[in-house]
């Protein structure tokens, strides 16, 4: 039996409505001529950009690119963890200044606190953001049940498998019901089988939650399987080489990968990445 979905945690500080997209119609994320340089003086290296991009509220966007193409930098800029060298970023029409409680991040390496139990880890945003305790706890338990971690709530992370750790990290990222979910190669550290299983599960969960999601990955199939839209990035400095709608039906499953349209999109993305390598 499936657990009853608890009401969203609300507190006076969270000024958002319940639906995925805001009613004002502004895109969830907008980037205008954004670049990012690293280093100083003679050794300045451009890691990213210039990039122009708009992400619609409620959509799932996959960004795929070779390692070192600055796709993680892109995510950190959108998260507010880094500032752009040039250009502007907007979140729901407002200037982006620093991290926001409306953004949840799943990092590549689960980043669970080893001294805390799974439940305590999932509850971290509630503690830091001072959310109403009882409602947060109810939501945490619901999320743990949804991800099959109910019986491991009291366990320490080191007792969990890689996939379970990443599930817990996902629960933590969505505990405060953020408008935007950022996924920084969330399956990068997992084996191929767990990877596929977990990415489909994530797809299902994302539909359940109905929020905007941005996935960073180096796996083309994963990008297509999960995304409404796939963005292929060029080698450093990372720029957008392809921005394409993934018009595959949902819900997606293991058979989606056999859909001719899936193959077609994959071929287009592949060709682009290979021509880059030949140059």
């Amino acid at each position, binding site marked *: 039996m499936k657990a009853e979905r608890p009401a969203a945690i609300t507190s006076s500080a969270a000024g958002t409505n319940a639906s995925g997209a805001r009613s004002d119609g502004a895109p969830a994320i907008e980037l205008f001529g954004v670049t990012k340089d690293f280093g100083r003086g003679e050794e300045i290296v451009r890691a990213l950009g210039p990039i122009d991009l708009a992400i619609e509220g409620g959509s799932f966007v996959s960004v795929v690119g070779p390692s070192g193409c600055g796709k993680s930098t892109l995510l950190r800029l959108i998260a507010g963890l880094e500032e752009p060298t040039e250009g502007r970023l907007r979140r729901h029409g407002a200037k982006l200044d620093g*991290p926001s409680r409306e953004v949840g991040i799943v*990092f590549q*390496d689960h*980043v669970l*606190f*080893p001294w805390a139990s799974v439940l305590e880890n999932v509850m971290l945003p509630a503690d830091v*953001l001072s959310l109403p305790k009882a409602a947060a706890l109810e939501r945490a338990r619901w999320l743990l049940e949804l991800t099959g971690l109910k019986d491991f709530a009291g366990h320490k992370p080191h007792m969990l498998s890689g996939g379970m750790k990443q599930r817990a990290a996902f629960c933590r990222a969505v505990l405060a019901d953020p408008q935007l979910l950022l996924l920084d190669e969330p399956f990068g550290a997992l084996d191929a089988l767990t990877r596929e299983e977990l990415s489909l599960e994530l797809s299902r969960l994302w539909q359940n939650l109905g929020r905007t999601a941005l996935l960073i990955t180096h796996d083309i199939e994963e990008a297509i399987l999960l995304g409404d839209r796939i963005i292929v990035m060029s080698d450093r400095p990372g720029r957008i080489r392809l921005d394409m709608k993934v018009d595959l039906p949902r819900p997606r499953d293991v058979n989606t990968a056999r859909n001719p349209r899936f193959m077609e999109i994959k071929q287009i993305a592949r060709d682009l990445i290979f021509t880059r390598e030949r140059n």
Partner: protein
Amino acid sequence: MASLPWKAISTRATTPIIYLVLTILWEAGVRLFHVPGWILPAPTAIIAVAKQWAPELLYNSYITVQETIIGFVLALVLSLPLAVIIAFTSTTRRLLYPILLGLQSVPKVALAPLVILWLGIGNWPKIVIVILVCFFPILVNVVAGFEAVPKPMLDLMYSLRASKLAIFRRLRAPVAMPHLFTGCKVAITFAVIGAVIGEFVAAQEGLGYMILMSTAQSLTPLAFAAIILLTVISVVLFYAIEILERRFVTWRP
């Protein structure tokens, strides 16, 4: 079939057996070569003298343990807030940390006569010497611990707009815990040495004083008994901290 438990027993018993063999060799060597008791007493002679002097040995152990523990706890109480201040205010860090690291290089033993000069004879100068030797290992390890936070964990806290206090409470403090215990284990071993040095320089009681007095009177077996007691105290205090560590740091990174 019986080989497995026998193997387990023999691995566990190796160290005690080595100690026992060494003690027997010591006893045999002393008897065989007629080593004078005031140079190297036989284990049996040490035990006999220890029994005879038991009340004095116990009382002076109590004094030394008391100085060690009071000094250690005070060092802990002083160094922890200072470590927090150094880790969290960059000005204090710039001003204070170089001075503290410089002071750490001063051989604390060399300060013992000065401490006695300033504080007279009594328990306090010895406690102060213990504080001096314990203070730095704890401080340096805890400061390092506060800074040993993995970058992704900090990013996670930043992404939640966590306050400095929240980052300290939820992240830096737990990360620093194993480092604190490492510092404490180094410090407690130093603490016993510090107490003995204090007693060497000026004291009327304590195991250090007993060693000094008994060697002066050629009561070498008594000095050996006191040294063995000091070793036992050192080991027991070290393991006491290790037990505390196992209670408080139950996680693995």
